[in-house]
C-alpha cells in the first residue's frame, strides 16, 4: 500500500517551500528573472514587438525596415513640360531607415546621473514610457537636363511608446535583482506599454488563418450584385511586414468568377479571368487545363470553365498585356501612382499590391488562384463542404507587435503622402518657385506633421485605430486594454486573453461564441466570462504558444520532392488522383493522398528528431480525402502568429508541437492509458494542459460542475489579493490589497510553477458546513468575530489623488505658473488647515483625512490667497504617500503631486467572500466566538456556510478541498490539488480520509460538534475542514445606498438618482404594481408622493386649472392675501364692465362681489405641476375636477 502521507506523484508537492521561498525573497536571482515560467506566458507580446526591429526575417532586418521598403518611393512632378521629361522636373523621395532609441533623459537635461529612463519613473510621473523615433528621408531631384542630386535628412518623428522589457526597453533581460533596483517587481515580465502612467496592453485578436483559402457559404454574398451567389473562396494574405490583404473569389451564377479586394477601405471586384491573364499572359488552354486537371468527364467542371472562358471574350482583351493595360487604365487614379508610369506598369503594380500579396511570383499567384477556383467549384458542386470560419482551425492571432508595426508603417506612408499633397498644393498655387532647390523640400518636410509617436500614443491610450486602409481588420476600436493590477490573477490573464473581435460582439447569432472541439488545448474551455463577452473573450491554455519567429522553410520543397512529391511544374496533374501540397499558401507540388500522408509522417518524424531543415513549429496539416468533407491536401505552415502547443509524439517519445489546423486530423490521447494502438499518434503532456493558468489554479476542478469552475475563474480575478510586490512604487488609480494573505494549503502544482506564492490571494479558513442560527441562509456566511479580529480578510484600498496645478482653476496657461504649492501668510498659524498640511502645502504623511479635509494647499500669486484641494471621499482615509512630480527635464517647480490615500477596509457585514469553487457568499454576521459551535478538540470554524449551497451546485471539489486542507493542516503538508490526478479506483476520499484517520480524525471529515449557545452536541456530525477563502472586491462600503432626505432634482423636485450624489434607489413601476396588488395604498402614497415630490398647489374650483393662481394683498380687517383664479375672475369682470371701462380693469378693486374663481389647495406631485406648465406652453389645458 502507498503511504498516504507521501503522495505518489512527487515528494516535492508536500512541502510549502517556505525556506526556499524565504531565501528567494531575500536573495532574488541575480542572473535570471524570478519566475521564468511567467516570462514564457507573455513571450508572444514581447517577441512580436522585438521582431519590429530585429530578426524580422532570416537576414535579421526588422519588420519596420521591410515595411518602409514596401511603402516605397513617392514621386512628384512640377508639371513644367520640357523635351526630356513630359511631366517636368521630378522629386522622388522615400524613407531610408527608421531608428528607435531607448527611453532616455532628454539632451537638454545636463544634471541627471542616470541617463536611462525606467518604467517605474514613467509610472510614478504618470507619463509615457517612450523613446525617440527618427526616420532618414532620402530624396532626389531629377531636372530636365537629366541631372540628379540625392539628399538626405534625418527627421524626428516624436516619442514612440515602447513595450516594457522589449529590445528597446532599458529593463530588457535584466535579472530579478536589477529589476528590484529599478523600482520594478522581481517577477515583472513586461509585455505592456505605459501611457500616461497606465499600463496598456494591445490584446490578442483572432484573425483568419493566413495563406489558407477558405470555402465560405455566406448568404450575404448573393446580395453583392447581379448573378452573385452565396459561394466564395477567401484567403487572407500577409506580406513579409505582417500587414494583410484579403482576397475573395466570388462564384457567379453565370459561370464567371470575380476577385474581390479592398483598397483604402473601398471594395473592388475584378473578373478573375482578367487577372489570370494579366498575371502570366495565360492562354485559354492553360487556364482550362489548370482548372480541369484531367477531369474531362466532369461535366459540372467543364461547363463552368467553358462559361468562364467564354465570358472573358466579351471584354475583347486577349493577351496579358491588354489585360494589364486595361487594369492600369482603370486603377491609375485610385492607386495614386506616379504620372509617368504606363498603364501596364500600373496594372502590374495593382497585381503586386493586392492580389495574393504573400506570393512574390506571378506564376505562384496564378497557380494559387486556379487552386482556389477549383476549390470553390468543388464547394458549389457539393464535393466538399464549406469551411467554418469560426473554427480555431482557421484562426491565427493578431500579435501586438505586428499590429503596432503595421500602424507605424501606415503612419509613415501617410506622412509621405502628406508631403506629396503639400507640394502639389504649392504647385497649384504657384508657390513652389524653387522646386529643385533642396531647401524647398526640407521646408515642405518641416511643414508636414511627422509626430508619429503621438499618433501611436493616442492609439494605445484609446484603443482607436485611425487608418485610411483599415489594415484589413474588422474593427476600429477596442484594440487596447488597461492591465489592471487588481490582483495577480487578473493581471496575468490580461496577457493571455484573446478576443474574437468587436464585430462579433454585436452579432445576434451565437454560433461564433460556441466552444468548438477544434479549440481543444489552445483555448481554455473554462476560462471565459459569462454574460455579453462569453465565448468571444477566451484565454489561451497555459501550454499554448504563439509562433513569433520566422521559420526557415526553404529546404522543405526540395526535401519533399526528393521523397516523391510531384513537382509543381509537372506537365499534367490528374486532379482525381492527386492532392495539392502547399507551403504557406504556395503550391509546391502534388501527391497522391497516400503519398501525402506518407510525406506528412516523414516530416513529423524529421521535425521531432530535430532535423534542421524542418522546423519544430512547422504545422503539417494533412487533410484526407473524404466525401463532402474538407478539401483535401497537404497544407504546411511555417508562418508566424499561429497557435502551437507541445504534446508527446508516441513514435519516438519526443516533444512535438501541434497547431490548431493539423490537430483536427490527429489522434491525441489525453492520458497514457487512453492511447489506442494504431490510432493514437500523440499523447498530451498532461491532461491539465488544456486549461488556462487561472483555470488550473482551481483545486480539484475535475470534481466540480463546469459552470462553477467558470465562476471561479471570474471571481479569482475579482478577489482582493496582492496586486504587486512593489506597492510603494505604484500609482494606480485604485488598488486592492489583502493584508493577511496566505499560501493555500491545497494548491495545484502550477501554483509553484508560476510563482503564485509571491502574490497571495486569500486566506485559509476553517469552514463548517452547518445551518446555524439562520444567518447563513441563501448563500450568506457567518464569520467568526474573533477570526475577523485576528485579521481574517483584512484589506486595504489605495486610491490615488492626482493634483495638477496646471489644470487647477485660476492657473495661467502658457506662461510661468502663478499657482504654487504652499500655505500663504493668510493661513494663520492656528488655522485648522495647518493640522493637515505643512508649510509646503502638502499633507503630512500618515495624517487622517475625512470628507472636506484639505489634501493640499496652493497659493494664488495673483490673487494673493491660499486655496486648498479637498478630499471628496466619504470614507476616512490616511495619507500614505506624497509624490512630488517633476517635469521631463526636471526644469520646473512643483506643479503636480500624487497623493496616495490608504483606506482601511476591515471585513464588515455585507462584504463578499468566495471559496475557489464558485461558491460566493455575503458575510451576514460576525458571530461572537463564544457562541460559535465547537468540535471535540475545541476547534471553532472561521466561517460557517449553509449545506444548501451544495446540492444544486454540485461543487464536490470544495468538499475534497475541505478534506485535503484539513489533512494538510494536521500533518503540516501542502496538498497537491491538480485536477485529473484521482480516478474512480483511486478516490480522493480514501487518500485524504486515510490521512485524516492517521491524524486521529474521522475518515470522512465529519466531526461531532457542540452548540456554542447551549453547549449541547448536535444530533448530526458536522463536515468541517479547511478551505481557502478569497475576499472579493465588492464591498458594501462601495455599494450601500440609503437616504431619507437629500438632494432633489431642481426641475421635478424628485430625489436624484445615483449613489455618488446621495440619491435614492428608484421605486419603479414594477414595485408600484406590487403595492397596488397588495392594496397597500397608504404605503403607495407615502413612497411615491410624500417621500418624493410632495407639493401643494392652488386649483380653481370652477375651471380646474392649476396654473391660473392670482392673488391680491388685502388690507383692512382681514389682512393677508386673497387668491383667485385669473381666468374665471377675468371673465367675470369682463362680463360686468363695459368695453369702455376695459382699460380700468387693473384699477378695479376686486373681491367686492361674489365671484366664481374660488381657489382650493390640493396636494399634487410637483412633476404634475411641471407637466401642466409644459402642456400650457403647447396650448393644452389640463383640468382637475375638484369636488
Amino acid at each position: 500500500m502507498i503511504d498516504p502521507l507521501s503522495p505518489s506523484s512527487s515528494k516535492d508537492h508536500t512541502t510549502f517551500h517556505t525556506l526556499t521561498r524565504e531565501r528567494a525573497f531575500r536573495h532574488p536571482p541575480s542572473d535570471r528573472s524570478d519566475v521564468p515560467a511567467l516570462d514564457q506566458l507573455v513571450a508572444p507580446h514581447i517577441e512580436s514587438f522585438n521582431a519590429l526591429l530585429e530578426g524580422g526575417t532570416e537576414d535579421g532586418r526588422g519588420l519596420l525596415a521591410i515595411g518602409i521598403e514596401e511603402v516605397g518611393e513617392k514621386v512628384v512632378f512640377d508639371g513644367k513640360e520640357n523635351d526630356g521629361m513630359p511631366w517636368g522636373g521630378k522629386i522622388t523621395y522615400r524613407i531610408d531607415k527608421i531608428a528607435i532609441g531607448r527611453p532616455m533623459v532628454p539632451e537638454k537635461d545636463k544634471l541627471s546621473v542616470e541617463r536611462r529612463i525606467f518604467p517605474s519613473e514613467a509610472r510614478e510621473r504618470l507619463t509615457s514610457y517612450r523613446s525617440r523615433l527618427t526616420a532618414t528621408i532620402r530624396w532626389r531631384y531629377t531636372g530636365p537636363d537629366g541631372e540628379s542630386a540625392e539628399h538626405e535628412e534625418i527627421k524626428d518623428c516624436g516619442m514612440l511608446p515602447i513595450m516594457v522589457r522589449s529590445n528597446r526597453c532599458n529593463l530588457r533581460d535584466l535579472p530579478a535583482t536589477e529589476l528590484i533596483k529599478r523600482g520594478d517587481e522581481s517577477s515583472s515580465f513586461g509585455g505592456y506599454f505605459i501611457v500616461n502612467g497606465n499600463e496598456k496592453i494591445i490584446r490578442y485578436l483572432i484573425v483568419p488563418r493566413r495563406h489558407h483559402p477558405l470555402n465560405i457559404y455566406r448568404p450575404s454574398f448573393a446580395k453583392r450584385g447581379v448573378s452573385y451567389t452565396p459561394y466564395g473562396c477567401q484567403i487572407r494574405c500577409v506580406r513579409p511586414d505582417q500587414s494583410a490583404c484579403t482576397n475573395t473569389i466570388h462564384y457567379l451564377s453565370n459561370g464567371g468568377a470575380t476577385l474581390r479586394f479592398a483598397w483604402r477601405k473601398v471594395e473592388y471586384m475584378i473578373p478573375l479571368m482578367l487577372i489570370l491573364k494579366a498575371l502570366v499572359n495565360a492562354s485559354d488552354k492553360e487556364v482550362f487545363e489548370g482548372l480541369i486537371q484531367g477531369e474531362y468527364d466532369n461535366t459540372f467542371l467543364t461547363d463552368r470553365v467553358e462559361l468562364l472562358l467564354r465570358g472573358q471574350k466579351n471584354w475583347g482583351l486577349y493577351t496579358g498585356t491588354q489585360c494589364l493595360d486595361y487594369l492600369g487604365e482603370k486603377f491609375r487614379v485610385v492607386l495614386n501612382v506616379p504620372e509617368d508610369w504606363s498603364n501596364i506598369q500600373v496594372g502590374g503594380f495593382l497585381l503586386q499590391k493586392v492580389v495574393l500579396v504573400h506570393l512574390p511570383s506571378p506564376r505562384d499567384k496564378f497557380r494559387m488562384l486556379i487552386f482556389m477556383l477549383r476549390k470553390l467549384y468543388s464547394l458549389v458542386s457539393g464535393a466538399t463542404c464549406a469551411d467554418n470560419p469560426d473554427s480555431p482551425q482557421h484562426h491565427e492571432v493578431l500579435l501586438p507587435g505586428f499590429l503596432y508595426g503595421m500602424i507605424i508603417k501606415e503612419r509613415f506612408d501617410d506622412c509621405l503622402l502628406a508631403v506629396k499633397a503639400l507640394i502639389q498644393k504649392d504647385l497649384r498655387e504657384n508657390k513652389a518657385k524653387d522646386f529643385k532647390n533642396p531647401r524647398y523640400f526640407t521646408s515642405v518636410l518641416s511643414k508636414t506633421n511627422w509626430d508619429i509617436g503621438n499618433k501611436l500614443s493616442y492609439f494605445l491610450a484609446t484603443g482607436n485605430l485611425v487608418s485610411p486602409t483599415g489594415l484589413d481588420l474588422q474593427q476600429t476600436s477596442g484594440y487596447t486594454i488597461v492591465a489592471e493590477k487588481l490582483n495577480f490573477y487578473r493581471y496575468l490573464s490580461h496577457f493571455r486573453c484573446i478576443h474574437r473581435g468587436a464585430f462579433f460582439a454585436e452579432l445576434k447569432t451565437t454560433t461564433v461564441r460556441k466552444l468548438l472541439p477544434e479549440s481543444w488545448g489552445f483555448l481554455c474551455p473554462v476560462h471565459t466570462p459569462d454574460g455579453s463577452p462569453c465565448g468571444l473573450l477566451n484565454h489561451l491554455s497555459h501550454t499554448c504558444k504563439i509562433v513569433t519567429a520566422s521559420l526557415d522553410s526553404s529546404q522543405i520543397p526540395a526535401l519533399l520532392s526528393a521523397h516523391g512529391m510531384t513537382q509543381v511544374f509537372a506537365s499534367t496533374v490528374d486532379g482525381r488522383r492527386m492532392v495539392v501540397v502547399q507551403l504557406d499558401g504556395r503550391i509546391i507540388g502534388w501527391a497522391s493522398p497516400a503519398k501525402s500522408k506518407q510525406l506528412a509522417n516523414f516530416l513529423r518524424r524529421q521535425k521531432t528528431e530535430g532535423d534542421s531543415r524542418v522546423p519544430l513549429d512547422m504545422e503539417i496539416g494533412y487533410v484526407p480525402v473524404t466525401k463532402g468533407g474538407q478539401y483535401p491536401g497537404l497544407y504546411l505552415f511555417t508562418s508566424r502568429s499561429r497557435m502551437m502547443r507541445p504534446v508527446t509524439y508516441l513514435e519516438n517519445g519526443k516533444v512535438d508541437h501541434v497547431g490548431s489546423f493539423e490537430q483536427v486530423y490527429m489522434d491525441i490521447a489525453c492520458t497514457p492509458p487512453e492511447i489506442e494502438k494504431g490510432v493514437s499518434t500523440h499523447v498530451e503532456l498532461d491532461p491539465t494542459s488544456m486549461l488556462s493558468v487561472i483555470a488550473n489554479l482551481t483545486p480539484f476542478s475535475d470534481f466540480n460542475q463546469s459552470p462553477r469552475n467558470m465562476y471561479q475563474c471570474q471571481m479569482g480575478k475579482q478577489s482582493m489579493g496582492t496586486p504587486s510586490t512593489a506597492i510603494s512604487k505604484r500609482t494606480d488609480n485604485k488598488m486592492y490589497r489583502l493584508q493577511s494573505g496566505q499560501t493555500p494549503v491545497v494548491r495545484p502544482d502550477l501554483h509553484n510553477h508560476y510563482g503564485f506564492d509571491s502574490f497571495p490571494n486569500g486566506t485559509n479558513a476553517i469552514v463548517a458546513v452547518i445551518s446555524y442560527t439562520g444567518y447563513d441562509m441563501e448563500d450568506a456566511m457567518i464569520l467568526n468575530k474573533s477570526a475577523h479580529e485576528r485579521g481574517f480578510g483584512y484589506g486595504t484600498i489605495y486610491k490615488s489623488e492626482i493634483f495638477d496645478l496646471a489644470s487647477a482653476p485660476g492657473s495661467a496657461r502658457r506662461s510661468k505658473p502663478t499657482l504654487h504649492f504652499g500655505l500663504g501668510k493668510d493661513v494663520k498659524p492656528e488655522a485648522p488647515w495647518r493640522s493637515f498640511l505643512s508649510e509646503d502645502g502638502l499633507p503630512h504623511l500618515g495624517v487622517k483625512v475625512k470628507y472636506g479635509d484639505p489634501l493640499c494647499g496652493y497659493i494664488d500669486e495673483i490673487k494673493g490667497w491660499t486655496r486648498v484641494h479637498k478630499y471628496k471621499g466619504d470614507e476616512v482615509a490616511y495619507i500614505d504617500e506624497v509624490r512630488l512630480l517633476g517635469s521631463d527635464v526636471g526644469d520646473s517647480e512643483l506643479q503636480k503631486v500624487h497623493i496616495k490615500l490608504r483606506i482601511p477596509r476591515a471585513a464588515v457585514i455585507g462584504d463578499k467572500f468566495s471559496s475557489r469553487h464558485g461558491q460566493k457568499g455575503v458575510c451576514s454576521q460576525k458571530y461572537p466566538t463564544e457562541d460559535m459551535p465547537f468540535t471535540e478538540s475545541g476547534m471553532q470554524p472561521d466561517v460557517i456556510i449553509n449545506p444548501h449551497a451544495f446540492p444544486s451546485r454540485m461543487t464536490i471539489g470544495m468538499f475534497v478541498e475541505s478534506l485535503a486542507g484539513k489533512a494538510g493542516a494536521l500533518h503540516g503538508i501542502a496538498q497537491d490539488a491538480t485536477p485529473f490526478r484521482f480516478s474512480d479506483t483511486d478516490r480522493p476520499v480514501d487518500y485524504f480520509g486515510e490521512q485524516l484517520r492517521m491524524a486521529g480524525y474521522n475518515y470522512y471529515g465529519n466531526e461531532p460538534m457542540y452548540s456554542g449557545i447551549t453547549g449541547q452536541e448536535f444530533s448530526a456530525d458536522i463536515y468541517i475542514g479547511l478551505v481557502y477563502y478569497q475576499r472579493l472586491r465588492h464591498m458594501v462600503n462601495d455599494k450601500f445606498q440609503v437616504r431619507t432626505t437629500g438632494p432633489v432634482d431642481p426641475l421635478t423636485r424628485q430625489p436624484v438618482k445615483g449613489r455618488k450624489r446621495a440619491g435614492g434607489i428608484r421605486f419603479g413601476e414594477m414595485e408600484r404594481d406590487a403595492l397596488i396588488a397588495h392594496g397597500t395604498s397608504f404605503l403607495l402614497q407615502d413612497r411615491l408622493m410624500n417621500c418624493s415630490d410632495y407639493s401643494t398647489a392652488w386649483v380653481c374650483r370652477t375651471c380646474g386649472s392649476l396654473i391660473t393662481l392670482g392673488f391680491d394683498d388685502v388690507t383692512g380687517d382681514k389682512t393677508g392675501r386673497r387668491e383667485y383664479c385669473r381666468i374665471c375672475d377675468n371673465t367675470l369682470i369682463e362680463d360686468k364692465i363695459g368695453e369702455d371701462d376695459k382699460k380700468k380693469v387693473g384699477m378695479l378693486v376686486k373681491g367686492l362681489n361674489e365671484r366664481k374663481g374660488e381657489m382650493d389647495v390640493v396636494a399634487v406631485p410637483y412633476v404634475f405641476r411641471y407637466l401642466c406648465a409644459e402642456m400650457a406652453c403647447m396650448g393644452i389645458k389640463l383640468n382637475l375636477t375638484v369636488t
Partner: protein
Amino acid sequence: MSESQQDTRWQSQNPNPMAPRPSTFKAPDVLNYLCADCGAENGIKSGENIRCKECGHRVLYKPRTYRIVQFEAR
C-alpha cells in the same frame, strides 16, 4: 510647587517616560524630500525645481511627518 519639581515627581512615578517633546512643533524652514531613485535627502525650497540634487531624478517623496499621528488607540 515649581515646574521642575513637578517634572521630577512625574518622572519618579513614571520611571521610563517618553522622551520630552517640545510643546509646539516647529516645522523646519526647508523641507527635506527623499529622492525616489537614490534616496538622498533634498532640501527643496518653494519655487525650486523638482529634482534630486544628487542624481537628478525627477520624482521626490515627502518623508513621514515627525508629528505624532495616532489613531484608534484601542
